[in-house]
């Protein structure tokens, strides 16, 4: 049904200028700056205590900004109360009003804005159709499942066509399958309405699935901002590498740098080739970490090692353990210098069986590995 398509709201450009929040002497959000484009799906991703929710609460107006400012469409909203900022909001615990039915919950922002009754009816109806809850208008929250309650919260946040919708871990309370389904739905609604979404989550898969760009937060600061695939392949430091999925990090010393590639020397004396990021300068003798994703590593049995053509780099090791994870098999391999690397192998038919204790060879393409500053 495309008839219920609503007009894309104009604007929705958010700018955070050195936003800071202090609790006592601790800076829980420390000079965070970001520019979020109109219609962008922007995620704040980080572990608990990283300051992502506090940042969102400062954008929403629920937490005072100690330093810096929040601008929306060239307007400084830093000191406006939440109800004047005009954002839609979705909370982790849904916050459905228990004394109002679904219709009145969704109508709430419209009634608060004193819209005429006829318009309220049309808009609530359209919003409920959008989240496929039009048959549940007279239900109360206690009669709805978690997923349905979340849909009510989403309908309520978009019904007044806000330029910006803020979402604070909206899928945190749902089980895994439902969460994925809701991710797709939220993304579809956001695309269709063309609204800006600022989305807080600690689930990296969720962030990568939905976001146009992700800001990885840690200790009150943004560690890295970028498109999901780019950050995944090119983390700027070890924290980002670890947080955005599984990561192999092997410590060593820069041996030499030659154009886009460099050599890292391990304690064992082995040399590993990897890309060097153009943005960072490296000096020989500097401590660094060798980074590669587990799925970019390939296990080859010792015998066929020399014959393997597409992989350019190799390390020998011994399989410590093998985990069956359904779609993949995860092998922990002890490489020569006592470092353990994780290798993910797709659960495809016809693979050679690997067991703990096997001597194997790990291979990869040098462009899949990166040096990170230690």
């Amino acid at each position: 049904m495309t008839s219920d398509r609503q007009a894309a709201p104009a604007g929705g450009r958010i700018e955070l200028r050195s936003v800071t929040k202090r609790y006592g002497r601790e800076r829980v959000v420390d000079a965070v700056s970001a520019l979020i484009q109109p219609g962008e799906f922007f995620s704040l991703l980080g572990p608990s205590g990283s300051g992502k929710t506090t940042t969102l609460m400062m954008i929403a107006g629920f937490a005072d900004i100690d330093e810096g400012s929040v601008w929306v469409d060239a307007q400084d909203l830093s000191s406006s109360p939440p109800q004047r900022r005009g954002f839609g909001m979705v909370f982790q615990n849904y916050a459905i009003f228990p004394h109002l039915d679904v219709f009145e919950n969704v109508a709430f922002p419209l009634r608060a804005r004193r819209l005429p009754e006829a318009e309220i009816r049309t808009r609530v109806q359209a919003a409920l159709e959008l989240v496929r809850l039009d048959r549940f208008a007279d239900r109360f929250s206690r009669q709805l499942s978690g997923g349905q309650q979340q849909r009510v919260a989403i309908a309520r946040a978009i019904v007044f066509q806000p330029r910006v919708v803020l979402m604070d871990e909206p899928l945190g309370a749902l089980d895994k399958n439902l969460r994925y389904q809701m991710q797709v739905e939220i993304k579809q609604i956001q695309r269709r309405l063309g609204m800006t979404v600022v989305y807080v989550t600690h689930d990296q898969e969720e962030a990568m699935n939905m976001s146009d760009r992700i800001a990885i937060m840690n200790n009150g600061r943004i560690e890295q901002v970028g498109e999901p695939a780019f950050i995944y392949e090119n983390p700027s430091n070890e924290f980002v590498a670890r947080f955005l999925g599984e990561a192999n990090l092997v410590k060593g010393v820069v041996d030499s740098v030659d154009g886009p590639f460099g050599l890292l020397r391990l304690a064992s004396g082995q040399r590993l080739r990897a890309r060097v990021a153009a943005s960072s300068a490296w000096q020989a003798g500097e401590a660094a970490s060798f980074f590669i994703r587990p799925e970019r590593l390939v296990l080859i049995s010792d015998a066929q090692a020399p014959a393997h053509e597409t992989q350019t780099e190799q390390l020998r090791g011994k399989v410590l353990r093998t985990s069956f994870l359904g779609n993949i098999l995860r092998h922990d391999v002890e490489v020569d210098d006592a470092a353990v690397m994780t290798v993910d192998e797709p659960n495809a038919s016809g693979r050679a069986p690997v067991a703990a204790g096997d001597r194997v060879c790990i291979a990869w393409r040098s462009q899949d590995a990166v040096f990170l500053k230690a």
Partner: protein
Amino acid sequence: MASKRAVADGSWLIAPALALLVLGFIGPMVLFFARTLISQGGLPELAALVTKVVTSEAVTTALIKTQWIALLVTLAVLLISYPLAYYMANRSGLKFTLVLFCIIVPYFTSIIVRTYAWMVLLGRNGLINQTLTSLGWITEPLELLYTETAVVIGMVYVLLPYMVLTLYAAMKSIDPSLMRAARGLGAGPFYVFRRVYFPLSLHGVISGSLIVFILAIGFFITPALMGGPSDVMIAMLIERAVEITLDWPGAAVMSLVLLAVTLALYAVYYRVTDVRRMMGA
């Protein structure tokens, strides 16, 4: 078999309380009603007695007065308690403890002591009149004591904790994220209160009002000590019938009327609190 089951499921745990209730309260009450009412003879005589007592001017006046005072007290208690409970529900630490202390401590003090304290304040030569006179605001002492106002003030003071604690419990069970959601969705503070907070605290308002009203209609000491000649409440009338006029049948009928009203209100109260449980609030 039955006693074995009682031991097994723990019913005996409530046996002492049950015995006390039956022997000390229900038993004497039933006995009192039965003896005084049966002594009237047959049903027609009993009906005549009930009609006579209930339609007598003293009883109707006292019933109206009782409910009027109970209503005034309930409204006054509600108006004072709501902001107080709101304050408590949104504070913690020392501020909360201090307010709670101020509400609970009088609650543990005897009603008579508290009533006499008010009489000291409101009397003809009481603290209030003395202060106002010395300030030169009045020349003649105000008639504060032995008025309906005095009764209401005294009863409000005694009944306040019931309302405050009921409202506090109701307010504490309101999820604060709901108010935040309402503000985030564009509602100003007053709209949030009117549309979200107050409706969610309403079951506490109803429960508290019913409990205060129920307690108020049975009040005896405060109106007896602080009221004027026209401030006769139903409990006082019952006491007079038993102690002074020795009209036990009349007292029995009046008591039954009071009991019936109380039970009817309690039934409503029970429904309200039951609904609250259903709401899961």
